[in-house]
């Protein structure tokens, strides 16, 4: 989202621009939270708010490359993360420690992200208006 124009075309007509943070902490497929969370994020794009997405804990697995879901007969929704840029959702943050204990690094992820320390992630959260976790 471009913050300088955010208020002009926003979806509910109120002109308010708030900082929304969506916190993704669940792995994909085992439960539906990751998929339904992503649906909220996509909808939020229509409201021209200041949206950021955070991937913490097992949420980092949502961004893993190479997901093939045919054999479990569930839709692979990981390509949608690549499409977020088209919705002007460009602020993607991943916690470093969540990657490390899983043996992952930023190169294993589907999309470019900003890797933050736990403390930096916490500081970012504090500045938000609305925090919704999945």
């Amino acid at each position, binding site marked *: 989202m471009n913050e300088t124009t955010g208020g002009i075309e926003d979806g*509910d007509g109120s002109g308010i621009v708030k900082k929304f943070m969506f916190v993704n902490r669940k792995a994909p497929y085992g439960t539906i939270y990751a998929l*339904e969370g992503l649906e909220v994020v996509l*909808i939020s794009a229509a409201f021209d708010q200041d949206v950021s997405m955070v991937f913490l804990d097992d949420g980092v697995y949502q961004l893993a490359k190479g997901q093939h879901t045919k054999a479990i007969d569930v839709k692979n929704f990981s390509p949608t993360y690549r499409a977020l840029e088209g919705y002007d959702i460009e602020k993607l943050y991943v916690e470093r420690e969540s990657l490390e204990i899983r043996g992952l690094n930023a190169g294993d992820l589907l999309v470019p992200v900003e890797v933050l320390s736990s403390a930096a992630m916490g500081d970012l959260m504090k500045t938000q208006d*609305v925090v919704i976790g999945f």
Partner: protein
Amino acid sequence: MVNEGPYTHQASDSAYLFAKATLEKGHQIHRVFFYHDGVNNATRLTEPPQDDRNVVTRWSKLAEDHGVDLVVCVAAAMRRGIRDENLAPGFRISGLGQLVESGIQADRLVVFGD
């Protein structure tokens, strides 16, 4: 925002008791949005044991007594078999945009879930 269905998780109970306390303190509730399995709070077909609380009718009564807007996410509801034909009084089915709009309009958004 309520994310889990009645009885299975305590989320719906906590959300209801929090909502009641909010009204008692004189605050306004802009909306209660039901998402994920939370949409199952809106079925009029539940019939819990007689010595148990009725989670669904409790929400309906909150809507009736205090005009609270109870919104069930349509996409989540369709996946789980909640439609107008089994919708309890006081609930309405609408889009996810209603959640984002609440986030914009309300002073605080509190999530109850699993």
